[in-house]
């Protein structure tokens, strides 16, 4: 077993236990230990990250990735769904930062606007519409937390290990098997070009025009569908609102 595989296996085991401890289980005991374990697992994972071109890039990436992942763990471990939503918003911001860092400026903005700005707020509205009095049991307990945590983390471990191993593979000539055909110059005129949004727009409304139309139709259908689902027939509207 190689070095990286060992690290990932260890991180997986620790992460699984940590996440299990963090998940709502009816008691709040052990959350601190869970947090520590998850932090160690994340650290182990971070130690296998590859170095980027300079320390500034490294620093920015680690901060953004850290925020994203920590917020994600918080999203699934907090009891109160409103807090979950807020942590999810933070995770989204981290993701947007990562998009920006990878040069996808338009996506970063779109994610913030559409996800954090629109979708998440809608979630919060619904949460507020459907708030139980007191702490609901379904927020305080989980369904099979052990199996869930184990499955999920094993999945992460397997994926990470595979990604790491595949990218590290070397051919007979000593060159990496996975190698980009494009040079930095190509990228500077492509995905990293200065007129980024113009290029994205040209791509979106050029090659992907039909898909855009289809997506538009889908949005319309969803709009109509949502309206139909929520609209109550007249007779039902007279009933008193469902109590808790």
């Amino acid at each position, binding site marked *: 077993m190689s070095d990286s595989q060992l690290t990932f296996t260890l991180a997986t085991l620790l992460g699984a236990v940590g996440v299990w401890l963090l998940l709502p289980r009816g008691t709040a005991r052990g959350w601190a230990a869970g947090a520590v374990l998850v932090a160690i697992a994340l650290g182990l994972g971070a130690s296998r990250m590859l170095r980027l071109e300079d320390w500034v890039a490294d620093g920015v990436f680690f901060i953004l990735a850290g925020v994203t992942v920590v917020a994600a763990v918080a999203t699934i471990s907090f009891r109160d769904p409103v807090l979950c939503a807020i942590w999810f918003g933070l995770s989204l911001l981290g993701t947007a930062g990562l998009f920006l860092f990878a040069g996808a400026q338009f996506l970063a903005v779109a994610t913030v606007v559409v996800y954090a700005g629109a979708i998440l707020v809608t979630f919060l509205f619904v949460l507020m519409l459907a708030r139980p009095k007191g702490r609901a049991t379904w927020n305080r307990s989980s*369904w099979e937390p052990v*199996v*869930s945590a184990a*499955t*999920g983390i094993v*999945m992460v471990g*397997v994926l990470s290990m595979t990604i790491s191993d595949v990218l590290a593979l070397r051919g007979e000539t000593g060159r990496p098997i996975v190698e980009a055909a494009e040079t930095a110059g190509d990228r500077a005129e492509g995905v990293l070009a200065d007129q980024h949004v113009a290029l994205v727009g040209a791509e979106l409304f050029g090659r992907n025009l039909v898909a855009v139309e289809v997506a538009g139709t889908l949005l319309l259908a969803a709009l109509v569908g949502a309206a139909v689902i929520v609209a109550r027939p007249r007779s039902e509207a007279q009933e008193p609102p469902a109590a808790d």
Partner: protein
Amino acid sequence: MDTIKTLLILIPALPLAATLLTAVLGKRVLRRQSHWPTVLAIGLSCAASLVLVFQVQQGIHKAESEGPSPQVGYEKVVTLWTWAGVDGAYAYSTSEPARGFRIDVTLRADPLTAVMLAMVTLVSLLVAVYSIGYMHDDPGYWRFFSYIPLFVFSMTMLVSVSNFVLLYVFWEAVGLCSYLLIGFWFQKPAAAAAGKKAFLVNRIGDFGFALGLFLLWTTYGTLDFHDVKLAAGGEGTAATVVHHETEIVEDADQPGLVRAGVLGQTMLRDRALYVTGGVATAICLLLMLGACGKSAQFPLHVWLPDAMEGPTPVSALIHAATMVTAGVYMVTRCLPLFLASEVALQVVAAIGGFTALLAALTALTQTDLKRILAYSTISQLGYMFLGLGAVTLLSAAGAVAGMFHLFTHAFFKALLFLGAGSVMHAMGGVIDVRRFGGLRRLMPTTHWTFLFGCLALAGIVPFAGFWSKDLILAAVGEQAYSHALDPQTQRLYYLLYIAGLLTAFLTAFYTFRAFFLTFYGEERIPREAGHHAHESPRSMTVPLAILAVCALVVGAYFELTHGFAHFLEQAPPLAMIAAEQATAEAGAGLGQSAHQALSHWWVAVISSLIAAAGIALAALLYLGHPQRVERLTRTLDAGGLYRLSRGKFFFDEIYDLFVVRPLQAVASLSFLFDRTVIDRLVDGCGLMPKRIGAALRPLQNGMIQFYALAMVLGLLVLLGTLLTM
């Protein structure tokens, strides 16, 4: 297209069109007018058949005027299309290339076919017209008139195809029509059972027929009647008929590329090409088994009396005049094969003679008018086979006589059946001769025409039956005489001769017994008849009258002019014998003709006397005091003879005991096995998924998260497998 080809196609095609038309339109559109397509189509077919007879006649004259024909008999074969073909299906011998199996749809015109076609279509036409009156208030009117042309189509095809496979196909097709029409009133359990019985008994015969065809194929490598010229490319390419009318078209360059048909010119000219011995006997006996089934000969005769459950026109058409003669036709067609085996011919003659006598004895005591006629049909068919069995290489007289009897019998038996139908129609469906009597004033036309039929059947001069029956008896007597060197065979033929004479006596007796019981004595009308008891409508009496004239005329006309015999002897299977005979007579001088003429007169006189005696006895018993009959019955019953005849020699019971019961036992055993073993196995197989399902059921717990988890676990397993590989 030349005339003969057009005619050959038209004759079956018109009834087929009629059957389709009536089947499609009959129920909704034509209704009470359903008979029109049928009558028109069969009428046109009949006209076409008569034209065909004249065309064939002309062809023969032309051949004769052109000098000695290179061909044995007259035949013309037209190929329509190739139905099926398999290349290299049969390796005839190692020295020859493998032969292909081809079924060409070929029709033939020769005197035998022409005679059969004319007879079938004429009788069918008359019966169809008769049915208009007879079936007029039946709810299945249109159904009846879509079956009848279907039968005519099948029957005309049966007699005009030139290939054993097609012969078999239409052999089955007429059987199907027979089944459909016997069970026409399928609501009646007896009719349904009778249809089933006919079908099953015919299966036995057809099984033998099929085996015979297989044996023919392995022996001769072809199932065509006629010779076929193979194209230069060898097997599989389009075949043309070699012998075309009177010429023999043989390619001088490639004389070898001719495949001799089983009954083709090549083999007819050189009889040595036919295999002899055990194989020939086996083929012939198997074919004869088929003929026994279809033509109701012992031991497969039991279905025909029951078949009388069908409508009377059907009995007249299918079970008296046409379909049941298919066996006779087939044996006549295959005579060259039968000639290769003396044993087979003797078996044919013996079966025929025995059946004739047996059926005549049974008919004596039956009380159902139609059944009497049915047994008489079996008996007369036996006569025909007796005639066919009395054929030698040197004399086709027996076969000609058999075919002649077939021809005349069709008219007078159809007449008798239609007369019986007329009586039945008037009596409100009652057919038991004990329940009515003295109908001669009530139904004068039926009475007179029935009398003509009875005279013809009994064989009284100058009615049709006399001439043909006489010829058969003469041929059998001739056969007995000519086997002077072989005492055993001679004894057989003498016995058959005596059986024939005895049958003639019995025939006359039972025919007139039925006649007297029906039309003489005090007038008795059953209750069922109500006020219906009157003469039948014109659509029924006109066909009766035409048939009566035919029954009076056809025998004398054709016999005295020798037209029938001369015409038929040009049919290839009979022409072969005529050719052999001519050669033999040229060598031996004229020794036999004088004897033949003499014996012929003797036979005529004897048989006439015997028939007259039969009629006289019937008159004595049934026109006189009924006590006389009762006394005689009691005397005979003491010896069990009466009961034996009344019980139809208990064939049904014997078959039931030795065939049906054991089969039922086997069937119930199989049923038990099926229930206890097979069903259990199947149930077990069915239980397995149930058990597995029960074991897996907890997985379906309705929790979407569980389903998602299961999905991811599956994905993980997949990933793990991929990564470890």
